[in-house]
């Protein structure tokens, strides 16, 4: 069976849904652990067939190692977030068995997304994923902020859907098919690409930019990141970003690869604005979650830059950057999840001050991860930035590379300001001592990973290069 992973996940989800009402005590934990097991099984089935290349359902979906690889990353990061959910003390309203189940639905959506090979199937799977995310964001019903964030996310998301559909309909009107390979074939056959097709592509691009929160379509991000429960923020800043980015890569490289001259400039604009807004916007923020939203925008801008040349090297660099970005982001969010004072979660940067005195080990780990985000050698973030810049410079886009470096410097300011307040500021009120040993261990693992990536970059390079190759095999 080619789509075994998706089948396992879907059937498992249905089974869990059925048994969840019958569990009396701590049902969210029980379901959560079973979901983890399910995710693990799915991963196993993906790894088993990672080199398969086949179209299924008459070209509606495609299974290739690029998709399988992204699915693995998505599942791993979602699994980690679920694990955080289980080990960290959450708000009461989150402790319901529906939480892991909704995560599972959105996971199914994402998995179909990255293997979609048709505008229609892509649309349906994006919707599946997004609807689940809207629910997750507004999961704390009692919390006003959470509901507000949910509404904002939903409205903006619906707008994104409209824009996507409009773009798709333009393309369908021209090509007469929504199939990716037909679109690609149309491009090759047609000597002059009609303007309307490219406008259709721009609509799709804008819609996807909304999902990955690339500027100037980022406005919802800070509000949603801040308003959503922290565990949900951790989730929406990782797995869906990977999935949507994977879709963007597949769309631009495969069906629209022929008109790279046209979309290249647009992606440059998106990437520049994202990097500028991501770095400048974060400076005034006082809330870590809000700051992380801008940090995400900045990182997305950086990754978009790697897409501009449309080469295998670019895709390789982006894939590595995605992995490294996940480890950094998850590390920071794990820490935020554990930030409590008098049993109440706090998320202000001020609360970090003097952390070094109470929790030296955690402070060190957080500092490593933040430095890594700032791109300071020899940490992981530096490796990712270096690879992307390398690609950009190779294609003679010196202006873009210079701008990227400048915005990185500005961005480094706010990461390092956090480090400064951890180590040098006098504590206002001390945070609760971290008693969660699993969190501690995970934090150490994340920071250790960030420290040591530089020692074995070849592993990631080979891995990503091989999956990038599979993406280009279609052409």
């Amino acid at each position, binding site marked *: 069976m080619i789509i075994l992973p998706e089948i396992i996940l879907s059937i498992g989800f249905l089974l869990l849904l059925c048994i969840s009402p019958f569990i009396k005590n701590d049902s969210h934990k029980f379901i959560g652990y079973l979901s983890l097991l399910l995710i693990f099984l799915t991963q196993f089935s993906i790894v088993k067939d990672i080199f398969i290349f086949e179209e299924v359902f008459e070209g509606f979906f495609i299974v290739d190692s690029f998709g399988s690889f992204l699915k693995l990353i998505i599942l791993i990061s979602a699994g980690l977030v679920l694990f955080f959910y289980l080990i960290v003390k959450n708000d009461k309203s989150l402790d319901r068995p529906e939480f892991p189940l909704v995560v599972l639905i959105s996971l199914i959506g994402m998995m179909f997304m990255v293997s979609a090979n048709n505008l229609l199937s892509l649309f349906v799977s994006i919707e599946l994923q997004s609807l689940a995310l809207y629910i997750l964001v507004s999961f704390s019903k009692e919390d006003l902020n959470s509901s507000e964030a949910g*509404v*904002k996310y939903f*409205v*903006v998301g619906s*707008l994104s859907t409209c*824009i996507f559909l409009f773009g798709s309909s333009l393309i369908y009107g021209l090509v007469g098919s929504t199939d990716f390979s037909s679109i690609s074939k149309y491009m090759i056959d047609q000597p002059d690409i009609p*303007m309307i097709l*490219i*406008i259709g592509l*721009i*609509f799709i*691009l*804008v819609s996807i930019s*909304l999902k990955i929160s690339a500027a*100037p*379509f980022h*406005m*919802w991000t*800070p*509000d949603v990141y801040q308003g959503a429960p922290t565990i949900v923020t951790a989730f929406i800043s990782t797995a869906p970003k990977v999935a949507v980015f994977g879709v963007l890569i597949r769309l631009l490289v495969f069906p629209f690869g022929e008109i790279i001259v*046209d979309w290249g*400039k*647009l992606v440059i*604009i998106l990437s520049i604005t994202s990097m*500028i*807004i991501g770095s*400048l*916007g*974060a*400076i*005034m*923020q006082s809330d870590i979650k809000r700051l992380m939203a801008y940090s995400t925008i900045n990182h997305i801008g950086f990754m978009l830059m790697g897409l501009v040349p449309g080469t295998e090297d670019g895709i390789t660099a982006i894939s590595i950057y995605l992995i490294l970005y996940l480890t950094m982001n998850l590390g920071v969010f794990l820490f935020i999840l554990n930030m409590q004072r008098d049993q109440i979660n706090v998320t202000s940067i001020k609360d970090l001050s003097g952390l070094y005195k109470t929790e030296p080990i955690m402070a060190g780990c957080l500092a490593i991860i933040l430095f890594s985000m700032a791109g300071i050698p020899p940490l992981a973030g530096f490796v990712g930035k270096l690879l992307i810049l390398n690609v950009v410079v190779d294609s003679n886009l010196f202006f873009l590379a210079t701008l990227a470096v400048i915005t990185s410097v*500005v961005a480094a*300011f706010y990461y390092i300001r956090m480090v400064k307040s951890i180590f040098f500021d006098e504590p206002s009120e001390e945070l609760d001592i971290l008693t969660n040993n699993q969190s501690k261990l995970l934090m150490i693992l994340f920071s250790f990973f960030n420290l040591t990536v530089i020692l074995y970059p070849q592993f990631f390079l080979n891995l990503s290069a091989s999956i990038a190759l599979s993406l280009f095999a279609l052409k």
Partner: protein
Amino acid sequence: MMIIATIFSFFSLVFVKINGESAIILSRWIDSGNLSLDWSLQLNILTASMVLMVNLVSTLIHIYSVGYMEKDPKKILFMAYLSLFTFFMLFLVSSSNLLQLFLGWEGVGLTSYLLIGFWNYKEKANNAALKAFIVNRVGDAGLLLALFTTFVVFGTLNIGEIKLLINSQNESYFNFLGFDIHSLTLISLLLFVGCMGKSAQFGLHVWLPDAMEGPTPVSALIHAATMVTAGVFLLIVMSPLLQSSEFSLNFILIIGSITCIFASSVAVFQNDIKRIIAYSTCSQLGYMFMAIGSSAYTLAYFHLLSHAFFKALLFLGAGSVIHSMSDEQDIKKMGGLYNKIPLTYITMLIGSLSLIGLPFLSGYYSKDLILEILYLNDFEYSLQFFTMGVIGVLFTSIYTLRLLVYVFHRESVADEKVIAHIHESPLIMILPLVILSVFAIFFGMFMKLIFTEINFLEMWSYTIHVDKSLDASFISQNVPVLIKKLPLLMILIGTIVILFLYFSFRNLVPFLKLRLSFIYNFFKNKWYVDQLYERIFVRPTFYFGKGFWKSVDKELIDNLGPNGFSRIVLSFSSLISKLQSGFLYHYVLSIIIGLTLLISLYTYIF
């Protein structure tokens, strides 16, 4: 450690004797375009003997320092610096390419800076260290330019390869700002500028006397025996290159002789025991450069080695005197020490006499040979240069004897307290003195042949340029007896003058000082070179520095650069935060605007 190193370097010299020249390549260093360099050790008769000398003197001074720095709280640091210096010096000496040599060159400059300013609670020491470093930078710039030019002209920095290529580049010209300059002349002049800095030749000599603020073992090791001779050594190594440029040889000769006269005349009027010896070093280096200028590289090297021994001896002796006089350095406040510290006295006496060039001591052989070569030279003005050298000998004997008389023979004028405290230095300090005085006595006598005999000249000629006609027999045949005895005569005159002035006609000295105050002040103030530099370079630099710092750096660059940038960033980021209103319809509007913007951008601009 140092003792072991010395023993090893002795073996390496023997090894060279047997096996001839070889280079040990340690590892690849630079591979960039045409430039490829190795970390390597050059082994030939020149480097091996130099390494032996450096190690020997360095070992003795390490031993001496144990006693001298005993009460200093930072003595471990001091020893570390000394060893680091020795490492860099060996690095410099044993290099087989110019860049590695330059690295060692900078390294010794750095350690010299650290050691001069070792007593960093003394402001004078700090200033002296800075002065040494800055003046050396001037010379280093010259050396660096020489390196660049060498690379442009020869395409390599390997010394052996350069030597092979010299003949092919004899006619090449280096175009600079439209002037065609004979490239070999340019290189050798630039090299010499580097050497002027490091070897304290006239013009760039100002740092050496001030460097005496450092601990005495430092002066002995760095400012007498090793580092200051690095310049001489470099020119000897590059001798085939120098040989192809007559102009630069003449230039070196002129500068060398000026330095010689200048430094020895100034030394006569100084009162600080270490400064006198420092100026003496300066003038002896002048002799070495004179020898180089007249193409007698072996003799320059001979004088370098023998000078290393007796000058280190003198410095260490001076250190011993200072030690016993409770850190007093003014010779006017000393006197009558000869029976109180007899061992120091005897060794100092040997060193001084060797410096003057009393027959059968090592200084006699090396210096007189240089003078004779000067006389034999077929330059137009060789007689004048010879005369300058001889006058230098006169001054040398005057200041040396003056020092001896003031320190050891006159009746004491020191405080009661200091006198009560006078004591012979401990054995660990005396032992190096004794060993060095053995060298100062016998080195010249035994080694003379190696540097002049025809068979040995053959051996040198593998490594450096040697004019084989100038061997011992030739010299002895062609120099008239009067000329040969002239330096000795000068010494006698000097001795008589000193005895006359300081023993028979005591009153004459103040009288002369008063009458000839103009001349006295001229020499006393070191020909006003320092004041001149102060006026020309130091003050304008400070003035400009202040101006630039205030107007350009603070006002212009800071405001436009870091501060301005951060202001822009802040204003932009507050703008972005303001845009983030929190109202949903604003967000939707922004999305629509973004979409329209992208489409119109695409349609109308791209």
